[in-house]
C-alpha cells in the first residue's frame, strides 16, 4: 500500500486535543529546592511538626542519592533547581467550604475536561477529589462516604484531621529513601488523595481524582495513600490530562496502597499527559513510584493502567504479597507514539504462602516511540506455593519504533510456579488491506486491531474508563500506520 498520504501517517499525526492553559492567580514559591523551600511549603500548608521533620529527613536523604540510569530512556539531565516546587490556587487560602466558594474559573476548567463536579458528579455517581495543580480544591460526596465511615479527602486535609492515620501509614510501603524520585516526592509533595476504608466496609462508589498539571514550570508531586482495613474494599480511579507545554515538566508521584486481611483495592489509571509534539518537543516527564502492600491474609491489590501520554514514563506499579493467600494483579496498556518513551512494568514480591500474581502487559510502539516492559517476579524462601503468570505482548506500528521486554524472575522456593511469555507482532499491510477491502477505513481498522490487542486489559477497567481508554488509544495513534 503506497498511496501518497498513507492513512496511517495521517492517523499518527493527530495532535493532543486537551491542550489549553487556564489563566489563574497562583500562589507559588520561588524556583529551586532547599531546606528553606521545604520549610516554606510545609508552613504554607500549616503542617504539624512531624510532617516537616519527615520532609526534611527525606530531603537530606535525597541529597545523597543519584538519579537511576538503568531505564531504557534518553533525556537530558533534569535541573532540579529550575523547578517551582509549590503552586496553589489562591482561593484555597480561605478554604472553600462548598462548591459555591470554588473559583468559577477553576470550575470552568473542570467543565472543559468533563470532570463530573456539581450535579453531574452526583449523576455520574463518582466522587471527585480534584487536584488542580498542587492543592485539592473541592471534594464531593464526602457526606455520603462519611456515613459509611470512609475518609476520602485531600492529603493535606488528612494531615490535619487524621494525623494518627497519616503517621501510622505514610511511608510504610514506599519509604522516603526508596528511590531517587520517591525521596524527592517525600520532601516536596504538594498534595494528593487520602482514602481510608474502615473494617468491613465496601465502598459504595468508585472514587476518582482528576489530576491536572496547570501552572507553568510547576512540577507536580502528588502523594496518595489508600488504606483498606480488614474486609474492606475500594475501587479508585485516577485520570490525567494536561495542557500543552513547550518545556518539559517533571512529575514525580508516589502512591501507596495498604490492604489488611481480606481487603481489596483496585486502582485504575488513565494517563494522558501531554506527550510532546511529533518531534518530541515538550511533554511531561513522569517518574512515578506506585506500590501496594498486601499486608493481610487473603488481601487483593489490582493495578490497571492505560498509559498513552507523557514524553517519558518511568513507572512500575508493584505489589508486595506479604499476607498468606494474597493476590496481586497488574494490567497495563502502554502506548508510545512520535518520540515518546515508556519504561514501565511491575514488581511482584511473593512473601506469604500461596500468593498469586498475574501480569498482563500490552505495549504499543508507533512512529519513533520506544516502549519497554520491565518486570520483576520474586519468590522469597518462605513463599510456599507462590504462583505467577506473566503475559507480555508488543505491537509495532512502523519500522522506526522500538519494543523491549526485560523481565526478571528470581525464585527461591521449589513449590513456586512462575511463567513468563512474551510475543511481538505488528499491524501488517495485509491486515489493513483486508479491512479496507471490506469498506473499513484504515483508521478504523487500526483502532479495531489495537483495541482487540488490548481487550484483556480494557475489560479490567471500570466502565467509564474503558470507554475513555478506547477513545484515547484511537486518538493517540492517529497517523501511525503506513
Amino acid at each position, binding site marked *: 500500500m503506497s498511496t501518497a498520504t498513507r492513512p496511517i501517517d495521517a492517523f499518527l499525526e493527530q495532535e493532543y486535543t486537551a491542550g489549553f492553559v487556564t489563566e489563574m492567580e497562583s500562589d507559588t514559591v520561588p524556583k529551586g529546592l532547599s531546606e528553606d523551600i521545604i520549610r516554606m511549603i510545609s508552613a504554607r500548608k500549616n503542617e504539624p511538626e512531624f510532617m516537616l521533620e519527615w520532609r526534611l529527613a527525606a530531603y537530606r536523604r535525597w541529597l545523597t542519592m543519584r538519579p537511576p540510569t538503568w531505564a531504557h530512556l534518553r533525556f537530558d539531565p533534569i535541573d532540579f533547581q529550575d523547578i517551582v516546587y509549590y503552586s496553589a490556587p489562591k482561593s484555597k487560602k480561605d478554604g472553600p467550604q462548598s462548591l459555591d466558594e470554588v473559583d468559577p474559573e477553576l470550575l470552568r476548567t473542570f467543565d472543559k475536561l468533563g470532570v463530573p463536579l456539581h450535579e453531574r458528579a452526583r449523576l455520574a455517581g463518582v466522587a471527585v477529589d480534584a487536584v488542580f495543580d498542587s492543592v485539592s480544591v473541592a471534594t464531593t460526596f464526602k457526606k455520603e462516604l462519611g456515613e459509611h465511615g470512609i475518609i476520602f479527602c485531600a492529603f493535606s486535609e488528612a494531615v490535619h484531621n487524621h494525623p494518627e492515620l497519616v503517621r501510622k501509614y505514610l511511608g510504610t510501603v514506599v519509604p522516603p529513601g526508596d528511590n531517587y524520585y520517591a525521596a524527592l516526592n517525600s520532601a516536596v509533595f504538594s498534595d494528593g488523595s487520602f482514602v481510608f476504608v474502615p473494617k468491613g466496609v465496601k465502598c459504595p462508589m468508585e472514587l476518582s481524582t482528576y489530576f491536572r498539571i496547570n501552572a507553568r514550570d510547576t512540577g507536580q508531586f502528588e502523594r496518595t495513600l489508600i488504606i483498606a482495613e480488614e474486609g474492606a474494599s475500594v475501587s479508585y480511579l485516577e485520570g490525567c490530562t494536561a495542557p500543552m507545554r513547550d518545556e518539559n515538566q517533571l512529575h514525580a508521584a508516589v502512591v501507596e496502597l495498604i490492604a489488611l486481611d481480606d481487603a481489596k483495592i483496585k486502582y485504575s489509571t488513565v494517563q494522558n499527559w501531554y506527550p510532546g509534539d511529533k518531534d518530541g518537543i515538550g511533554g511531561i516527564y513522569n517518574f512515578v513510584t506506585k506500590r501496594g502492600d498486601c499486608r493481610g491474609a487473603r488481601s487483593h491489590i489490582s493495578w490497571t493502567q492505560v498509559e498513552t501520554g507523557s514524553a517519558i514514563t518511568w513507572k512500575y506499579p508493584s505489589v508486595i504479597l506479604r499476607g498468606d493467600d494474597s493476590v496481586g494483579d497488574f494490567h497495563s496498556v502502554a502506548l508510545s507514539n512520535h518520540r515518546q518513551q515508556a519504561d514501565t512494568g511491575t514488581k511482584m514480591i511473593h512473601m506469604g504462602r500461596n500468593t498469586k500474581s498475574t501480569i498482563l502487559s500490552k505495549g504499543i510502539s508507533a512512529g519513533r516511540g520506544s516502549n519497554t516492559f520491565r518486570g520483576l517476579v520474586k519468590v522469597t524462601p518462605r513463599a510456599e506455593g507462590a504462583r505467577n503468570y506473566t503475559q507480555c505482548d508488543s505491537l*509495532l506500528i512502523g519500522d*522506526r519504533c522500538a519494543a523491549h521486554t526485560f523481565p*526478571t*524472575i*528470581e*525464585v527461591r522456593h*521449589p513449590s513456586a510456579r512462575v511463567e513468563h*511469555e512474551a510475543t511481538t507482532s505488528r499491524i*501488517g499491510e495485509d491486515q489493513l488491506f483486508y479491512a479496507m477491502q471490506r469498506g473499513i477505513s484504515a483508521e478504523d481498522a487500526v483502532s479495531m486491531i489495537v483495541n482487540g490487542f488490548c481487550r484483556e486489559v480494557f475489560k479490567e477497567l471500570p466502565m467509564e474508563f474503558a470507554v475513555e481508554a478506547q477513545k484515547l488509544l484511537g486518538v493517540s495513534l492517529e497517523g501511525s500506520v503506513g
Partner: protein
Amino acid sequence: MSALDLWRERHRALAPQLPGAGLPWLARLRARALERFADEGWPTSRQEDWRHTSLAFLEQSELVAANAGDAAAAVERLRAASPDGHWLVFVGDRFAPALSAIGALPAGVTLMPLADALATEADTVEAAFGRAEDGDSPQALNAAFFTDGALLRLTRGVALEAPVHLVFLPGGEAHGRHLRNLIVADAGAAATVVEHYLPGADGSTLTTAITRIEAGPDARIDHLKLQEEAEGAIHLAGIEARQARGARFASHSLSFGAKLARNDIRTRFDGEGCEALLNGLYHVDGRRHVDHHTLIEHASPRGTSHEFYRGLLDGAGRGVFRGRIIVAQDAQRSDAMQRCDNLLLSRQAEADARPELEIYADDVKCAHGATVGQLDEDSLFYLRARGLDEPHARQLLTYAFAAEALARIGLEPLRARARSALLARLPGGELLEALA
C-alpha cells in the same frame, strides 16, 4: 599489596615466558588488557551484567594449583567412546602433545595449539584474536595472561568431517589457567568443535577460557562445550561468534561442574539469512552457582535464532540465566525464539531468569518465555500408578526434562558423552543409564 597489584606483579614475572612474547602487537594488547583488568577489578553485583554473580570474593581468595591426576586414562576413556576426530589435550595451561592425536587433516585445514600458531601463523592469530577492550574484565585478564588453546582455520569450502576435540585437564600454575581458542571458517567451510573441561584428581583453580568464532559466508560451525570441572573450581568463559551472510552457528553449552561457572555466549549476524541455535543445560547442587549470559544480535535482515536453556537446580545451588536478543533497526524478517525453563528440586535452590527482547524493527517474529517450577504432579501420579516408586518416578521425570536439551545435539557420540556426564550428576543415574 592488593590483589590487583598481585596480578600486575605476576604479569611482570611471567611476561617474558608467555607465548608470543616477541610479537609487538601482542605485547601491546596484553599490556592494555592488564591495565584494563587492574582498573576495573573483578566484576561485582553492582554491575547490571553481574547482578546475580559477584566475583568480588576473588579479590581475597588464594588460588591453588590443581593436579590433573591420571590424565592419560581420562583421555583414553573419552577416545574409546568417540573414536573419530582430531584430539588436542591440554593439561593446566599448556598443550600436552603426548596425550594428543591431531591425526590427518584435509587440505585447507590448520589445527594446532595457539602457542605454536603464534610462531607460524601469527597473522591469522592477530586477525582473529580480538581486542583488549572486548568483554568484561575477566576477558581482559584472559587476554593478558593466556598461554595456550587451539587455532582451527578452515579455508573456503572445506568441511571437516570428524569433530575437533579440545580436552582441558586442570593442573599446573597456581595463578590459574587462561585459555583462548580461535576458530576461523572461510566461506562455505564446516566443522564441529568440542570443548571439554574435565575435573582433576584434586585441587581446583581458576580458569578463564575465551573462544572466538568467525563464520564466513554460508559456513557452518557446531560448538559443544561440556564443563565438568571439580567442585571448588572457578570457571569464567566466553564464546564470541560473528556470522557472515548465510552462516550457521550452533552452540551447546552444558555446565555441570565447578563451584562457580559463568558463560558469556554471544553471536552477531553481520550478513543476511544467518541461523543460530543456542542450546544450554545446567545442573547445580551443593552451594554451586552457574550463570549463563547470552546475546544474539540480529544486526542484519532475515536471520533466524532459536535459543533453549534448561536448568536443574538442586541443593542450595543457584542457576542464573540472562538472555538478550537485539533486533536492529532494519533487520526486517528476523525470527527469534527464546526459552528458559528451570526445575527447582530442593528448598534452598534458587533460579534467576531474565529473558530480554530489544526490538527496533517491525516486521519480525519474536517470542520468549521463561518458567520456574517443579515436576508435574500429574506426570508423577501417572508413573506411580504404573508401579514406579516416587524417587524413581522423580528421577525419570527430571532426566526427561533435561533430555530435551541433549536431543538437540546432532552427533550421536557427542550426545552420548553429554548424556553420561549428566547422568553421573543425577541421583539414580546408573539406573537411568541402563534405561537409556
